[in-house]
Each structure stands twice: as C-alpha cells, then as structure tokens.
C-alpha cells in the first residue's frame, strides 16, 4: 500500500540538524505533537501496512518566512530509504521556478510537484503558476495541489476552492492533478472535477472532526454515495493520510470501513498511486 500524502515535519534528527525545523513545525505548519525519531515514521507505516509514503514539502518561505520542509530535506530522506517517494515544491512566483522544478526532478530524483496556494500565497491562475504546470507536464510528473481547508494558521479558505484549478486542468490535459484532502468541504466540486476530467485525481486525506472512521462514514456514505467512488472514480482516487496530523493506521482503518470492494480498495491503496508515479504496476480491472 502507498500513502500519497505525508509531511516529514516532526523528525527529531532533522530538528537537531536544521535550526529552524522545529519552529517551522510549530509556527508555519502548526502541529503540537512531539518530535519523533525517523524510526517512528517507519513503524507508523508498518502498523498501518503501508510500504511506501510520498513526502511532501511546501515552498512557502516567501509567504511564511520558512518552508515546510525543503526539496533538499525531502531528497535527503529519500536517500535514507526506498520506502520514501519525494515530491518537490517550488514558489511559482519565484523567477526560475520551472527550472528549479526540473532540477529537483532530474537532479534530486523527486517524483512529483506539490503546491499549496493558501500557504504559499499565490493565485492559482497566475500565468507564472501555469509555467510551473507546463514544466511538470513536460517532466511527466503528477501535481498534488492543496485543496479544501488548511490547518496552517493565516491561510484563507477561499484559496482552497477546487474549482479554481479548472482552468489549469483544462489547459494541461496531460498533467495529472491530485486534489489533496478531496477538496473538503467542497467535496462535490472535487467530485465534479474528477468526473469531468480524467486527469483529476482525489486523495483521501480529509479529516477535520470526529474520528477518522466517523468522518469517512459521513463523508463517503451520507455526504455522497459510496457508489461514486466504487463505480465512477475508482481509477482516480489515491489513499493519503496527512500524517502526522493523523496516524496512518487510523486512516487505513477508516478507508477499509467503507465497504468498498477489494478490487476498488486495491486501486485506492496501491495501483492508482503506482500509475501516477510511474512505478511498478499491477493489472487493473
């Protein structure tokens, strides 16, 4: 199984190595949990049955003073374990952002693009962002874009509206967009985009109240029929936990509580991610 949405923000070895790392976790990303040795990350994956995790940085230094992990830090972690798949983040308003992305992919071996308009403070339809999308499309990597509500302080909700991405989705049909957090609370907007556009994927890292299983039961059974996932979107959903905002084991349990068929779960938990990442694939139905 692959977790498509994790943030390496509480790793003690990095807190000891990089002076601003803890302040970034507390003040920019805003998370109160204790720092943990890297070993805990792997153990969290193990108990959840996760083999590989996508690590997401956010290049928000211009807007927030510090980046939420750098591309270099993500690449460093990927160098420590093949269980990590690193994404790159760039500031689209920074001159040379497209070249920076190309360098992170070709030079550091990072496998995707991560952007968060709310935390990075840019307009999703700024022409400068489109230059980054163009580069991502040319590189053949997926773009995981924050949509929905952000936990980070000072981030406006409006910049997380999934429909803001429609012009880019239409302009770059060969670029696969992964809408993080299922666009919550705009889940129907996210659904509509995924139904209409084959280059739109949704990640399951939405959890904002109650317990993970309760949240999923409401979101996927009452807010929308689970049949949308089972029948229409089965090839466009990837499992993401948003660890360490929630432990991976709880999110795996939640997705497995929905009564999806094994074939559909296999796609969500593994093969859709493999397809997006261009790694080993298994036959899909």
């Amino acid at each position, binding site marked *: 199984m692959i977790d498509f949405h994790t943030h390496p923000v509480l790793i*003690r070895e990095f807190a000891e190595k990089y002076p601003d790392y803890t302040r970034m976790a507390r003040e920019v*990303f*805003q*998370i*109160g*949990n*204790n720092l*943990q*040795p890297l*070993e*805990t990350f792997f*153990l*969290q994956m*193990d*108990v959840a049955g996760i083999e590989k995790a996508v690590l997401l940085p956010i290049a928000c230094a211009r807007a927030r003073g510090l980046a939420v992990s750098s591309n270099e830090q993500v690449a460093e972690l990927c160098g420590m374990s093949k269980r990590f798949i690193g994404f790159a983040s760039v500031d689209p308003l920074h001159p040379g952002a497209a070249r920076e992305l190309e360098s992170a992919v070709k030079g550091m071996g990072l496998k995707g693009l991560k952007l968060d308009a709310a935390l990075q403070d840019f307009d999703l339809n700024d022409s400068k962002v489109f230059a980054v999308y163009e580069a991502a499309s040319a590189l053949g990597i997926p773009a995981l874009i924050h949509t929905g509500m952000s*936990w980070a302080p000072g981030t406006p909700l409006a910049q997380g509206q999934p429909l803001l991405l429609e012009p880019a989705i239409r302009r770059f049909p060969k670029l696969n967009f992964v809408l993080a957090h299922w666009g919550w609370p705009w889940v129907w907007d996210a659904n509509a985009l995924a139904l209409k556009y084959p280059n739109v994927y949704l990640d399951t890292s939405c*959890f*904002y*109240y*109650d*317990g*993970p*299983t*309760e949240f999923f039961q409401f979101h996927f059974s009452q807010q929308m029929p689970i049949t949308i996932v089972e029948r229409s979107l089965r090839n466009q959903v990837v499992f993401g936990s948003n660890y360490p*905002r*929630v*432990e991976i*084991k*709880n999110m795996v349990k939640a997705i497995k509580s929905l009564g999806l068929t094994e074939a559909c779960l296999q796609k969500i938990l593994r093969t859709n991610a493999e397809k997006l990442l261009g790694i080993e694939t298994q036959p899909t139905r």
Partner: protein
Amino acid sequence: MIIKLEKIKVQSRKAEEAIDITAHVDELVAKSGVKNGLVNVMTCHTSSGLLVTEGLPCLEEDILTHFARLLPEDENYHHRRYLDFDGRVGFNAETHLKSILGGIQCSFPIEDGKVVRGSRQTIYFMEYDGPLERTYMVQVLGE
C-alpha cells in the same frame, strides 16, 4: 538524602503494547546509591500508562483486550473535535481514558539498595497509542 531523577526513552513498536521495564528500574535503583528509600516510576504522556501486574504474556493480552472492550474506539467521545492549537483532531480519547484506567505511575520501597517487590510483580510501560518514542521518569529518593 539522595534524590535522583532519570528520564528514560522507550520506543514502542505496535499500536498497543505492554513493555516490561522492571529490570531497567532495578538497574537505576542499584546505580543510584540509595540504600533505603523509595522509587517512583511515571509515564510522561497522557496516552500511555504505567502499571504493575504478573509478568505473563497472557495477562498482557488480557489487559489490552479488556481495556479495549471497556473503552471502544467507536464510543461517543467529546474529545473528538477540531483542535486548532494542536493542528489535529482529538480523536484518541480512548487512549487517554485507558491511561487513566490503568494508571500512570507506581512506587516501590528500596531496602538494602534493592527494589522490594512481590515475586510476581512486574512493572510495565503501557503503550495505548503507538508506535511512538515515549519517555518515562524514574525518581529515586532515600539515603
């Protein structure tokens, strides 16, 4: 009067786990130089615990199984809410309640430089929300 405080890290490897720390406590007492006094052991976390029982795998399993029965995950807990200051949802109420139910500390007398314990008493660090690196404290007081 000697007062020594040690903070010990322990890495839990499962979601729930009973970790025998008896030998480590004995060792810290022996190193402390205290001949007669008291040793207190306490977890530093609110979703883990410290308890004393007979050191048998079957009892370890029973404790965790019956705590889960008494405090199921799918109960209606008020703690399950958006905690903006923490950047998380407080979805682990049952782990906090298990910590309260099983307790967070224990103490034993020290005599002639050794912990005085019943022959079957084993000290466990209880993980209710792992795997995590945890810390427990051992304070030795005496002469």
